Structure formats: C-alpha cells, structure tokens
C-alpha cells in the first residue's frame, strides 16, 4: 500500500469521526438551551466550543457567544477547519484520491454526504433545524462506517480504524477534560438539577446516555460515570475502549513489524494501566492530570504513526 494512501485513509476516518463528534456536541448544546439555567444560557455553548477545540477560532471571529453563531461555526463555517462541513469536504477530497483502496459503497457513502451537505449549506437553515442536521450527520457517518464492513481486512482497513480510534480517543478525552469537574467525588448522590444536566451532557455527547443506565445498576454516582467513560471497555467511546482498539489495529498491521513494535512500545504501559487501574485511584491521582497525560500520549502516538508510515 502506498504511504500516501495509508495517510489519506487514516485521515478520512478521523474527519468522519470528528464530524460526528461536532454534531453530537451541537445536539447537546441545543438540548441544554431548552432548559432553564440559573447561570444563564450561554455557558453551555462555551463548553461546547471548548470541547470541540474551537473556542479560540470562534472568539477570533465573534465577540459574543450565541446559539446561532455557534451552530453556524461548528456546522457550516468554512473558516473553522473542524466544522462538519470542512470535515466532510476533506474526507471527500481524500476519498477521491484513495477510492481505489475503498469499496464503491464507501466512496458512495462519502460522496453522497458531500453532495447533500453542499445543498444543505445553500439552504438557509433555522436554529430549529439543528436536530435534523445532527441526526443527518450521525446517519451519514454510520452509513460510512457500515460500508467499511465490506472492505478487505488488509492494512488499509487497519489504517482507517487507527484513524477512527485516535480521533475518538482524542475527542472523548477532550470532552472529559472540559467536564472533568462533574466527575469529581461529591459527598452525596448526584441529584441536583445542575448536576443532572452536567452529567447528561457528558453522556449524551459521548452517545452513552442510555447505555450507561444499562451498564450500571443502582444510583447514579459521579464515580460510576467516571468509571464508565474512562475505564469501562464495553463502552465504545471510553478511553479504555479507544486505546484497546488503537493497539489492536496497530498490531494487526502486516507492514513494517519493526515500526509497529516501536509505536506499540510507547503505548504498552498506558494500555496495561488503563485495563488494570481502579477508578478510585485515578481520581486520587487527579482525573484532570490523568486525562491530560492521556491526551498527550494519543497526540504522540498520532505523530509517530504519521512519521513512521506516511513520510
């Protein structure tokens, strides 16, 4: 497989994953805007922007944070390199180059998404259309992921999934970083309105709202939620699940075993730790510190992959 092909495949699934994350974040912000909030309505939009890693770019463009602008910035704005629109545009132009390493279905999934978002962008949309836009985005990304099931299980497949899980690990961790205070131990069960809102933001933006209820019995506690999102390897967006899958698709690569080993060695410790650790000791160590370390590690794995395989 051409190095350039591997690189493009890796980025296609990163872009598609990022498109979904942004859409989910917007959905969370939208839900929150429907609830009364003693701190004012705009706080959630700020944390949505922070979780999307877009706060600086947004502030360069706008002075105030308000729903319509945030929606536009995160969804359609071509100035925001991570907007859903740009993610799909980039995924599509990469896919155009590597469509030979794809199935026709995967290409169709991305190209149709592109054709439709061009039309959506030309329609003036209302704030109330946001749930439709979010739903549409998630549907399109699912269509793309579904199409991958017919791919040959070769290195191209593994690079696609490496991209997906590196992006997801990064997105989940950033979201936890923005909201980690929600997960700090509290004297009593989570119950108040604010708390309720905060943890449901977290779970919803990680598409784990219903799943959490099924995974844990009894009362909702911040520790259980932290355990679910950090350590529970049944949760497809937990840090643990992401890192396990990075390791899996990395070690499944058949090309260049020495490069694979080199990267694997830098990941090994974190992987073991996250499988064996108890949530209590992570919280004792400092959840924020843990998540920060995690983000740095993923970012160095990302640059290792790019350096070793794509250059």
């Amino acid at each position, binding site marked *: 497989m*051409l*190095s*350039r*092909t591997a690189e493009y495949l890796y980025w296609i699934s990163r872009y598609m994953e990022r498109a979904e994350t942004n859409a989910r974040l917007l959905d969370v912000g939208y839900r929150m805007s429907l609830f009364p909030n003693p701190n004012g309505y705009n706080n959630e939009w700020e944390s949505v922007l922070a979780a999307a890693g877009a706060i600086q770019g947004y502030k360069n463009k706008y002075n105030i944070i308000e729903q319509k602008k945030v929606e536009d910035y995160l969804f359609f704005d071509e100035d925001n390199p991570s907007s859903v629109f740009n993610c799909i545009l980039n995924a599509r132009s990469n896919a*155009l*180059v590597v469509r*030979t390493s794809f199935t026709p279905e995967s290409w169709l999934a991305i*190209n149709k998404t592109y054709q439709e978002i061009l039309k959506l962008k030309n329609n003036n949309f209302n704030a109330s259309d946001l749930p439709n836009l979010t739903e549409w985005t998630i549907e399109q990304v699912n269509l793309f992921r579904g199409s991958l099931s017919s791919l040959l299980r070769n290195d191209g497949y593994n690079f696609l999934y490496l991209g997906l899980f590196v992006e997801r690990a990064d997105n989940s961790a950033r979201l936890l970083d923005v909201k980690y205070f929600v997960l700090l131990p509290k004297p009593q069960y989570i119950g108040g309105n604010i708390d309720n809102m905060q943890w449901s933001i977290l779970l919803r933006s990680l598409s784990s709202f219903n799943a959490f209820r099924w995974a844990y019995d009894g009362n909702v506690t911040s520790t259980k939620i932290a355990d679910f999102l950090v350590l529970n390897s049944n949760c497809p967006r937990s840090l643990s699940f992401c890192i396990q899958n990075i390791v899996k698709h990395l070690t499944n690569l058949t090309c260049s075993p020495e490069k694979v080993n080199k990267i694997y060695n830098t990941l090994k410790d974190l992987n073991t730790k996250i499988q064996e650790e108890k949530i209590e000791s992570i919280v004792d160590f400092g959840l924020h510190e843990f998540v920060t370390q995690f983000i740095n590690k993923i970012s160095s794995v990302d640059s290792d992959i790019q350096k070793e395989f794509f250059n």
Partner: protein
Amino acid sequence: MYQSESLIRNHYNNINEWLEKMTAKVINEKNAEAETHFRNIGITFSTNSETARERIIPFDLIPRIFTFSEWSKLEKGVIQRAKALNAFLADIYNQGEIIKANIIPKELIFKKKSYEVSMFGFTPPRSIYSPIVGIDLVRTNHNEYFVLEDNCRTPSGVSYMLENREIMMRMFPDLFHTNRVTPIDDYPTRLLQTLMSLAPIKCNTSEPVCVLLSPGPLNSAYYEHSFLSDQMGIEMVESTDLFVEGEFLYMKTVDGPKKVDVVYRRIDDDFLDPLCFNPNSVIGIPGIMDVYRTGGVNICSAPGAGIADDKAIYIFVPEMIKFYLGEQPILENVQTWSCDKDDDLNYVLDNLSDLVVKEVDGSGGYGMLIGPKSSKSSIEEFRRKLSANPRGYIAQPLLDLSFSPTLIKNQVEGRRVDLRPFCLMGENAQLSSGGLTRVAMNEGSFVVNSSQGGGVKDTWVLAE
C-alpha cells in the same frame, strides 16, 4: 438512425419501438436517475470555467447502434491505423526510412516540439510506443467513415464508455434482453494484460507491477484515472509517490520501497522527468528517463509518442499504412489542406467561409474556426491569425456528420455525433467492442467536445 426522411435503419427498429412506448414522465425520471448516478459515483470533470466546481457530462438515453458487419470493418481499419502509427514512431526514432523515401518531409517531424530527441535510438518493449490508441471517427451520410484525428498519447474517455453501459443496463435491463449487445466490461482486464505484456527487459517476473501515474485530483480526467486503476487493481500514483534508485523505479509504500515495472502515465511528456524535460516541473520523477532507457521500467505511452497524432502528420497516415504495412487504408482521412504549403494556404484563405480551420497543436475544440457557422468579422480575425502563422494550421471541409437520435426536451431530434473506439496494442492488437460516442447537444452544432456542451451516449455493437 434514419436512412432518409422517414425510413428507419433496420437495426434501430427495436429502439424505436422502445422509445415510442416511453412516456415523457418516465424519460424525465430516467434522466434524473442517470444524473444522480453520475454525480454519486463522481464521474465529473472540471472545465476551464471558474464557476462550477464539478460538472457532469450530459448523458443521452438513446444508444448509438452498430451492426456486426459495420463494426467489423471499423475494427480492421482502426487496428490497421494503430499498427501503422506505431510503426511510424519506431521508424522516426530509429532509421527514418519514411523520410529517406521522401514521403514525409523531415522538417515536419524534427522541428516539432512533440518530437522527443531523447528517444532517438531507443526502442521500447515490443516496439510499441502507443499502447492505447484512440481514433476519432465520423460517419457521413453515405455510410462512409472518416478519421477525424488520432490520439496516441493518453486518449481519455474510456471510463465514460464503461459507465454509460453500466447505467443503461441498470436502468433498462429489458433492452439488453431483447438486443444482443456485445459486452465491453472486460476492457480494464484487457488493458492490464496489454500493460503487463509490455514489461521492460530487466523485469524478471511473469507478473510485472503496473501503476497508473496521475497528475492528481485537479486534472479533468482524474475520475478516469482512479476508475481505471481500481478496475485493474493497480495503484494510482502521483509523481511524489515514485522515486528512482540505482537502475530501477520504486514507489513509496508502508512496507518500504516497492519496484515498479510498467508506468501507465496520464501526464504529459513535459512533466515526466525534470532532469530530461521541463526543469521547472514540480510533478516529475527525477531520473525516470535514465531508468527507462536502460530497460528498468516501461513508460506507456512512450515519451515522444505525441508526434504521431500531430495534425500535420495526420495527413500522411494513409501513406504510412501503404509504406509500413503494404496495405490499402481501410479508413480514409478527411481531406485536409496543410497551410504551410503555399498552394494549400491560398486555397484556404480564398475559401475560409466554407472550411473548418484547426490549430495544429490545439485540442478540445478550442481555437478553431468553423467557416460556414462564423460571422464575417470572426472570419477576418482568423484570417489575420492564419496569415501570421500558416504553419500552425490545417483546414478541412465541413463534414456532413451523421445524426443520431437524441432526446431533447423529451422529443427525439437528430444531433451530430462522432465516435472514439479504443485500440489496445500489446502482445495482441485489439479493439474495444464499442467506444465513446460524443454528441453535439446544441441544435445545428458540430462541436462534440465535452468542454463545449457535448454529451455522451452508450455505444452498442450488436453481436453477430
């Protein structure tokens, strides 16, 4: 389709019945379906226009049909021509017999930019310079075919030939039950076999590694590049993926370097090797020409193959056929005046309003004059250009191109068509059982180029 005003040519009877049964509503639906399909698969092209990001070529639902016997003649004629063009290239890059025999004046060849001096004395595998030859043909009313031009570099359009058939089979399966249409879907396999049969001397495997070299996504034929490499199962590379080390060419893979034996290049000569050709090219592969000349890799088509499809050389192709093959040409040329001869030039200048004048190095239907369709002032403007640089032009009569039934706003109307079949030259010489039919969608228009409002049709060759 029509023999005269009211008589339908026999082999179109089935199609005519089918058309009569289709309502306007169905036609609209099918047109929309085809357009959506082409957009979805991404069979688009970019034009010189700044406005549209990507355009699709208009697709006409009515196929163009050839009978078996009609096609057999074309097939022999095109293969004959492709053989002669390759023989010509082998000759002018070696002994130059055709020049010594005073058939083609040497300045017509050696002074051309498309004549590649660095190819002199080198003969590519099997003496094939142009493995894919696209011959543009037109039919006049008297059921005669003429060659409009030859394409020996990297003729494009074969993806349309294949995709037009796919969409027709998908939308109108019944048509294919009632008509015996020769399949064309083995073209990519045959193309790959052709490329593999042209492995360089130093290649010691029975399964040479072939790649398609594309200039990248901004090229107007990019869809075709990715389509063909996908269908053949070979890598589509850009020049940055390739590098020369020692005697061989390699591509950069995640496994490390992998040797490449045959490059099906879809980039121009100028951009192949900055060490040999254009030193400012950023998209070339430094050193590839050395590897090529020492038998480490084959480049298809060969650098310098373009001289054979030069419009000034075109005039001599019938002579080439006689000279190299000892045969009479099966397909005729369109009568052509070459403006670098004084007699011809005077005739052309006197008859500008009746003639079509083309630039020798032009393509895409740009920069030409269609005398009978032009205003007095544009004829005069062209006269000045022509007089200033007679060598740069040829002239031909305006051909009475055949019409093919075409759906225009749900009505069947006659529109002018041409045909480009694709001839493969490798271990075997073979012709695709079909080709690209281009149609001038505008009423009265003679220009079929997609860049100027041309459309395409599925092209059927009926089985015997």
